[in-house]
């Protein structure tokens, strides 16, 4: 029952996802790579997030230079950190018709009558470079380098393409090694269709950023790729097993190599090199802002400088804000973000400072500068952040009102509260209350109370235990004395003589009851024998008792119960024997 309810809930959740999520619909356009040749196919994916269906197929712009083939639709549901996100992906295959740089997109998607636009992507289509060789076979590895001449620390893109017509598996790649050269993979490998020398191939492409730390001409040896190639066996006649699913193929290990390449690494020019140059090479931009720009004395404003771009971002130095008069500066830990895409290494560094003015007035925060080598213009450039201004008002005299923002850890101007800073250190004052000072208010360890608390519970238990034991023992002793007396009384009675069978039977029963602490009203000879036998009396003696009682019982039942019985002489001996053998 519970499972059914859960299933219904899950299903209803899935059904309701489009309506739940339709309030926050977004469209993203993505190409599998930014550069391709005229003979390659390119995969374009339009991802719609926040809904599982659109009103109609996306309308794509900027695709005049391409042949567009729809590649299918797939919907998805993701649950990340308990948040359900539904989406649909439209996949297209593009076949370029001409070379050039193109802006692909935006894609327009209609959801519930509302048109949502995506981003755009740039795509460079180059002429396919065909090798002079006529045919390179059904499987080959191609390597290209772009550009072939770079400056120190500038990245070149090393692209490896595996062209194949057969199914392959277990691919492993061995990259060439060279001193002062470093390879860094850019994104995941992509697969697409391409044409080479008139033949169609499936291409697996993987890109690397190649960075050199020293000038010189580097010979890049061939990359080696090992794999298992599955070649289909031709069958004479078509059958059910001609289906690729059932095709028979045998695996064959193959290692192929790419062509060797050469990279010319130029040293960075000495001319115009700034003194503060940190080795940053690439293309960068700087942004700076102050939040808030108007504050009161003692409050803090945050100055943020963001340096972002494409290149060796690890070389971005930590900028230093010069000391400012009447402003206390607290630098935050800079945050470096590195990312890679098909075009190379990129990233940003965010630096923050908390500025706390000590006096009211207008302040000017000077600009910060950084130099780098611009690979576009092939010269050094200096980036400068804009100078910022800050208005500082006097301290508010009125009592501060505690607003909801303050309670949430925010100041009323929206900025985060500062960490409490220790301004001085001193001891806490003396204790002057008499409350805890009463001497000896608590009993001391080792005193009477101490021993009383420790020993009284134990003694109470011990005394009760012994009293109980003594009492039990006394009760048992009384029973034992009574038992001893019972034998004596019976023997004495028997010795008097002239007793009837009735009298002797009841005397023996009384003896057994008192001796063995029983309270039986009547007793058969067998029961009596069993009782004494269970108390350790031998089988012979028990049998004797049984026989004696049987004879007495017979006498009673034959009407001789009141007559004098001559067995009175044997019974004392039997009782003595029972007493002797009883445990």
């Amino acid at each position, binding site marked *: 029952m519970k499972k059914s309810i859960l299933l219904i809930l899950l299903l209803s959740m899935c059904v309701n996802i489009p309506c739940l999520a339709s309030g926050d619909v977004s469209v993203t356009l993505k190409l599998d790579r930014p550069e391709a040749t005229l003979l390659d196919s390119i995969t374009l994916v339009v991802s719609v997030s926040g809904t599982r269906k659109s009103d109609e197929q996306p309308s794509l712009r900027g695709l005049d230079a391409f042949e567009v083939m729809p590649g299918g639709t797939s919907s998805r549901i993701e649950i990340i950190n308990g948040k359900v996100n539904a989406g649909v992906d439209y996949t297209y295959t593009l076949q370029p018709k001409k070379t050039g740089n193109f802006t692909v997109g935006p894609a327009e998607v209609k959801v519930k009558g509302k048109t949502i636009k995506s981003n755009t992507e740039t795509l460079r289509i180059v002429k396919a470079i065909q090798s002079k060789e006529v045919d390179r076979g059904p499987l080959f590895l191609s390597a290209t380098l772009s550009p072939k001449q770079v400056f120190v620390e500038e990245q070149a893109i090393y692209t490896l393409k595996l062209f194949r017509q057969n199914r392959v598996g277990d691919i492993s790649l061995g990259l060439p090694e060279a001193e002062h050269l470093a390879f860094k993979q850019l994104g995941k490998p992509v697969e697409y269709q391409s044409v080479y020398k008139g033949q169609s191939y499936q291409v697996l492409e993987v890109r690397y950023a190649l960075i050199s730390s020293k000038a010189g001409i580097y010979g890049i040896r061939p990359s080696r790729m090992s794999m298992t190639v599955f070649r289909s066996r031709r069958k004479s006649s078509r059958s059910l097993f001609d289906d690729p699913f059932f095709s028979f193929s045998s695996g064959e290990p193959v290692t192929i190599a790419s062509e060797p390449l050469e990279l010319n690494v130029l040293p960075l020019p000495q001319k115009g090199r700034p003194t503060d140059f940190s080795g940053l090479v690439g293309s960068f931009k700087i942004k700076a802002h102050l939040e808030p720009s108007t504050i009161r004395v003692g409050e803090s404003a945050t100055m943020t400088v963001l340096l972002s771009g494409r290149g060796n971002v690890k070389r971005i130095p930590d900028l230093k804000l010069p000391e400012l008069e009447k402003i206390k500066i607290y630098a935050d830990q800079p945050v470096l973000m590195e990312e890679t895409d098909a075009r190379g290494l990129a990233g940003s560094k965010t630096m923050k400072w908390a500025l706390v003015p000590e006096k009211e007035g207008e302040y000017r925060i000077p600009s910060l500068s950084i130099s780098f080598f611009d690979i576009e213009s092939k010269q050094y450039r200096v980036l400068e952040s804009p100078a910022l201004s800050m208005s500082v008002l006097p301290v508010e005299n009125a009592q501060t009102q505690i607003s909801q923002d303050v309670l949430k850890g925010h100041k009323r101007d929206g900025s985060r509260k500062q960490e409490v800073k220790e301004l001085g*250190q*001193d*001891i*806490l*004052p*003396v*204790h*002057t*209350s*008499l409350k*805890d*000072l009463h*001497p*000896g*208010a*608590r*009993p*001391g*360890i080792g*005193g*009477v*109370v*101490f021993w*009383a*608390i*420790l020993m009284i*519970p*134990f003694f*109470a*238990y011990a005394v*009760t*235990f012994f009293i*109980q034991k003594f009492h039990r023992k006394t009760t048992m002793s009384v029973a034992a004395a009574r038992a001893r007396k019972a034998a004596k009384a019976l023997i004495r009675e028997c010795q008097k003589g002239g007793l009837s069978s009735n009298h002797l039977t009841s005397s023996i029963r009384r003896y057994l009851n008192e001796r063995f602490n029983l309270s039986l009203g009547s007793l058969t000879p067998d029961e009596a024998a069993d009782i004494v036998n269970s108390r350790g009396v031998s089988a012979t003696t028990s049998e004797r008792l049984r026989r004696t009682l049987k004879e007495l019982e017979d006498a009673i039942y034959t009407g001789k119960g009141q007559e004098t019985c001559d067995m009175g002489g044997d019974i004392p001996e039997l009782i003595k024997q029972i007493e002797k053998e009883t445990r």
Partner: protein
Amino acid sequence: MRRYSYLAISIIAIIFFSGLDTEAQPNGWEAIFFRANEAFKEGQYQDAIDGYEQLVQTGHENGHIYYNLGNGYFRLNQLGKAILNYERARILIPRDADLNFNLRLARDQIQDAIAEPQGFIQMAFFWLDALSLQEVFWGFGILNVLFWGILLIRLFHHSEWNYYLSFVFFVLFLIGGTSFGLKWYQVRTDGRVVILEKEVNILSGPDIQDTVLFKLHEGSIVHCERSEDGWVLIRLPDKKRGWVEAGSVEQIKRDPRGPC
């Protein structure tokens, strides 16, 4: 019956009053305490210390008085004496927030970096550091009453619930008893001494002519192994050992016979 009542009342009265110390002058110590507090407020720290010391000497040993004494010595810039009295206070009122704050502040000013070793017993019986001997005793006392009480009940009434309860109380009784025993041993054998001078030479023997092995500074806490003719053999947690003049150190546990 009446005779038994008198006997019971007498026993209770003996037990109750035996724990209380005699108070010869009911208001005397209070007056000294107030005067010392006033002196402290007015910045007459030496007078305040004299007052608090007088209270301690007359048997009014109390964690709060030791705390106040520590504050007085701290104000007089006698770090060693301040730490000594804070540590004495910590034995009696280990969870006092003011005390722990001031002690931490005082310890921050010690020059020597001597790490306090953490043994297995300190880790296993981690609560002992936060409880005074009195508190551990009362905890054990309650467990003692509960344990023997449940056994007593079992003499008259056997049932499943009191069987399991007696087992639980037995385990707690053992833990409580062990804790009390350890705390008792810890307090009785506390051989820690505090360096009282700004800087002292630790020598290889009990003679001023002996080699200086290392130096210690005011406020450092070390263990005293034994004393001999006005000299004390001390040991550091890292096993460094040496002799120091008895006048340069004072034991945290008050002992009229001197250190160790």
